[in-house]
């Protein structure tokens, strides 16, 4: 692909990108959020039509006018947003668009059989092909997505952040499959924000920034600082900021969770968080971490146990009561659980504190704008224009807007669920700094993340969760990544 240009209304998402992929290699695509990676691969998949540029396939010029054209040619794509139909079965999803059928009549038995074979190849024979995809966990869905890409017998498979929803052991599994594929001469384009993954399986790296190719065909072992510099245009030295001695009295117990449990999800969870403390929760995907946070917050009803904030017991299953007590939640799915995409940043920021921005039910829009602008500047959210539509912000900045919502509300307990999911390196560092600053200001934080280094690097104390139960609790500096991995995997592998 050379000189690819793609403009969306108001954005030049791709501004002349070049990408060359060879057979049998894993070609990694790096770039910050919004750099244009997903857009580029959508052009490659025929989902978007480029405005300029040309695509050469095995030496010949081609145009990919539809996804079918790309699939026929041999390009299969696993999109960043899960591209599955929740209501259809695993087998139906795998063969969607190229159903096993004759004369329009589906051959379901054959489809199921072939689906099982594909899942076998991925090391997951236990996923039943007739199961509805909506019932699978995120990781299971990712596997179906992968099986679908394999089902096409493609010569080039594009994977857009396939590991974002995967736990460590799943990632290893995925890498094994990728290695098999490349050994068979299939080319893979691999997108991830996790540099360590790229080092592990990548052969060559192309970095894009602001819709332009910054560097092409770098070796996979290019030093981190160099890659980050290329991606962001600046150098990011230390990723996790140092723990500063905070001035707040961290002996004050703010959040106390006692014997909290929900049927089939988690049981007997006890912990306390002090003012100015960051509590990390580590565990595999599906261990029930999000559920615990949402239950504390009242978004789910607990079957037993209590949550106490500043000595006051929260009403079970009542978000309002948690919010009033000063608890905030930055949920796992930013787009679907936190943001109002049609609204301005200011309106998003004040959503939880409408009461303080209104008198007799009438909104005080001047105050709303003023306060949110201040907060945006505090958080270094760019651009700090509260009137802008929140959908125009990049992922990292959207996350800051969610945090701003709770700060404006004056919250004392902040629950962060995967705050850096899908956020690029530069923005990550800023979020880390922000989290530390909040702690320094005396906010009690609970941090859930699938990235072990993040939990260990940021948190003061860490809970390790397995199958909905706390199996270990220790100060972060007493744990290593290997320890934690050991603990979370033990038993579940059996």
């Amino acid at each position, binding site marked *: 692909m050379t000189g690819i240009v793609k403009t969306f209304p108001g954005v030049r998402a791709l501004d002349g990108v070049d990408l060359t992929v060879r057979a049998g290699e894993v070609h990694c695509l790096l770039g910050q959020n919004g750099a244009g990676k997903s857009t580029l691969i959508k052009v490659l998949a025929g989902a978007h039509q480029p405005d300029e540029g040309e695509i050469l396939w095995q030496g010949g010029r081609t145009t990919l006018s539809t996804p079918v054209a790309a699939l026929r040619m041999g390009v299969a794509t696993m999109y960043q947003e899960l*591209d599955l139909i929740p209501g259809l079965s695993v087998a139906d999803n795998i063969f*969607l668009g190229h159903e096993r059928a004759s004369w329009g009549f589906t051959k379901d038995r054959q489809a199921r059989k072939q689906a099982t074979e594909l899942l076998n190849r991925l090391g997951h024979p236990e996923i039943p092909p007739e199961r509805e995809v909506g019932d*699978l966990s995120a990781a299971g869905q990712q596997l179906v997505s992968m099986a679908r890409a394999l089902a096409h017998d493609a010569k080039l498979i594009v994977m857009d952040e396939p590991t974002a929803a995967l736990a460590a052991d799943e990632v290893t599994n995925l890498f094994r499959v990728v290695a098999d594929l490349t050994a068979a001469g299939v080319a893979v384009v691999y997108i991830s924000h996790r540099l360590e993954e790229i080092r592990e399986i990548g052969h060559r790296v192309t970095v894009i920034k602001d819709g332009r190719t910054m560097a092409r065909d770098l070796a996979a072992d290019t030093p981190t600082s160099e890659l980050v510099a290329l991606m962001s245009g600046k150098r990011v030295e230390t990723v996790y900021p140092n723990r500063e001695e905070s001035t707040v009295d961290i002996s004050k117990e703010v959040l106390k969770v006692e014997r909290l449990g929900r049927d089939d999800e988690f049981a007997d969870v006890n912990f306390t968080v002090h003012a100015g403390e960051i509590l990390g929760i580590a565990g595999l995907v599906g261990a029930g971490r999000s559920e615990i946070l949402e239950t504390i917050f009242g978004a789910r009803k607990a079957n037993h146990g209590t949550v106490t904030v500043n000595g006051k017991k929260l009403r079970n299953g009542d978000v309002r009561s948690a919010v009033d007590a000063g608890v905030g939640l930055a949920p796992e799915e930013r787009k679907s659980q936190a943001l109002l995409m049609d609204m301005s940043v200011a309106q998003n920021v004040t959503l939880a504190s409408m009461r303080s921005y209104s008198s007799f039910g009438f909104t005080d829009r001047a105050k709303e704008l003023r306060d949110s602008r201040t907060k945006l500047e505090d958080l270094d959210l760019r651009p700090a224009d509260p009137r802008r539509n929140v959908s125009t912000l990049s992922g990292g900045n959207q996350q800051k807007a969610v945090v701003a919502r709770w700060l404006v509300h004056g919250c004392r307990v902040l629950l962060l669920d995967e705050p850096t999911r899908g956020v690029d390196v530069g923005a990550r560092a800023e979020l880390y700094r922000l989290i530390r600053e909040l702690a320094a200001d005396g906010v009690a934080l609970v941090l859930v993340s699938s990235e072990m280094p993040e939990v260990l690097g940021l948190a003061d104390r860490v809970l390790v969760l397995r199958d909905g139960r706390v199996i270990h609790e220790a100060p972060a500096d007493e744990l290593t990544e290997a320890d934690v991995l050991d603990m979370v995997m033990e038993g579940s592998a059996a």
Partner: protein
Amino acid sequence: MPERPAPRAKQGLGVDLRLASLFGVLVLLILIGWITSPDNFLTGSNLDTILRLAAPSGVVAVGMTFVIISGGIDLSVGSVVGLASVWMTTLATQSYGPFVMVVTGLLVGLGAGLVNGLLIAYGRMVPFIATLAMYISARGLAEYLSNKQTQVVRDQDFLAFFRGEFLGVPTLVWILVIVVAAGWVLLNRTTFGRRTFAVGGNPEATRLAGINVKRHIAFVYGFAGLLAGITAVMLAARTTAGSSTNGMFYELDAIAAVVIGGTALTGGRGTMVGTLIGVLIFTLITNIFVQNNLPTEVQNIAKGAIIVIAVLLQFRTNKARANT
């Protein structure tokens, strides 16, 4: 491994439970009918009446099932029934004989449906609005064509065939059976059906899987229009006339039946059997009320209540199922 012991009941079982509860409602209604009018309810001729009444609405509901599963809605079917019935019974059309009547009637339905589909798929109009416009226009066009007169069917072959019986079962009921069976096969055993589910479940993902979503949507509405055309033929046979008032409120009845039958208005899920039971439930309610000489207003109050109860009940069943 991410897979655990199934946290939800299996899909198959779930559908069965839901359908079973629906079926329970049906049986209950039959019992009520039987108890309240023991002499007349369970007779062959009453069964005939019920099924012949259910037939046209049933055919419309089959098309509506596809439309709703595909994530859309079609408010225009009733009006299209009126338009097609007027078209096929004008003096001009009738002069060409029964074959042309039926074929052009179906084509008018198909055409109106395709217009809906094109507006929605390629004009990117919301289904509700595109079909609302068709709802208004098609009825107006039907009035215009018929000059607001009821047009009597003079063709005896047409009447003999469609008003007749075959193996003791009325032709209209045969048509219903065939359409429902064909609809079931189309929905569950063909790529067309599979893709209808896919389009309704996640249109963008379906597009990315290489399916021409727009064309498929246009086809789905065309199919619903075609079935409206079949309904027009059935009504013309049943009433021996074509009129611009034919098919009034069929869209609401069909939507209600489809939803009662367990098809989600959000698209992506639904069953043909559920729709059939939904249609039968509504027809039975009417029949029971007539059998017992109850006035319409009471019937309407009850109908609304039954919709609410049936849906709430299904929700319970779902919840129970989810909690198992």
